[in-house]
């Protein structure tokens, strides 16, 4: 191979490399841009959940099912004026009134606020149906009705467990039956 041939080979290699470099360069570093505009409107809100009281399991503090949510269950067992209650976690009082017995259990209510300057809230409750005669449902000694919300507290603090006691008072002549209510609690920001 003479000098001219060598130059030719090197020239060919150089051209080939340049082409490869050009191809590679053509595929890299290209950019495309786009713009996404986000919009939202923030609204104040509060939430209410029921929680087991720290004393849960002891007398007067039965466990909730689905504790930590806003839809819980509370089983008060079975009770009679003469025999007391079947559950040890239920507080039973005989002769709470003339011929009445009472079963009760306490739990906590926690109301949380977000994006609100509300200083506190008021709490009310309502039972779902009229109870039988001589049966009364109460929260902290305040009788509930199914016709309207009954205010329980006027200025409860947010994010603080508020202990509430559900009481059911039953008089002697009430026939044996299942007593059941859905109690709706309403927290309203002040």
């Amino acid at each position, binding site marked *: 191979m003479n000098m001219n041939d060598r130059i030719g080979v090197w020239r060919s290699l150089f051209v080939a490399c340049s082409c490869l470099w050009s191809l590679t360069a053509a595929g890299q570093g290209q950019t495309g841009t786009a713009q*996404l*505009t986000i919009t939202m409107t923030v609204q104040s809100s509060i939430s209410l959940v029921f929680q087991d009281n720290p004393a849960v399991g002891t007398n007067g503090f039965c466990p909730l099912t689905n504790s930590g949510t806003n839809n819980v269950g509370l089983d008060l067992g079975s009770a009679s004026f003469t025999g007391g209650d079947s559950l040890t976690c239920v507080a039973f009082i005989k002769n709470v009134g003339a011929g009445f017995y009472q079963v009760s259990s306490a739990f906590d209510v926690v109301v949380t606020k977000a994006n*609100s*300057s509300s200083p506190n809230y008021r709490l009310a409750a309502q039972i779902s149906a009229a109870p039988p005669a001589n049966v009364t449902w109460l929260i902290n000694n305040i009788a509930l009705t199914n016709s309207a919300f009954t205010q329980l507290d006027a200025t409860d603090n947010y994010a603080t467990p508020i202990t509430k006691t559900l009481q059911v008072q039953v008089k002697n002549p009430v026939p044996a039956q299942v007593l059941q209510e859905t109690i709706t609690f309403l927290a309203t920001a002040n």
Partner: protein
Amino acid sequence: MAALMLWSAALFAQNPTATGTINATLINKSGISLVFDSDPGGVALGNNGSSTASLNFGVISAFGPLAAGVTRPVVGANSYTVRTLFDVQVIQAGSTSPNYTLTAQLAAAAPTGFAYAVDAVTLTTAAQTIQTNGTYGTDVQHSLNLTVSTAAPGAGGPAVGTPISATINFTATSN
């Protein structure tokens, strides 16, 4: 003699011709484009399929109802997050690039009480890398996560009851 005369007649019967050439040149440049597409699991984008789309979360709150396509994966003591999905499609032409890198940045500082993230990447006004190996020519799903302080307005929380906007600039760069 007769044959010679016939040949001459044929010569005179041919149409005259002329030829020319055009030396045409087209420089086929490489390029990529980026558009936003609505994701089936997210909110419907305004200007869907374009490079200047809009995304409306609607009314958001820590505990209240949300618009269709918006979820609330986290509610904490100090903040909550609302999320929606959107798709990015990057198209290449005249390029041998195998994939692309996607970056995003806020056009301006986030409003008080807000933090924005695409996928798991929190956005700032500097470009943040979202993805390093995006596939061309197909919708690539991304999540837009908006973390909102639960603080009250004026106490570190966002303004309430008024629409708040932010703009995110996306850039796709061919690898």
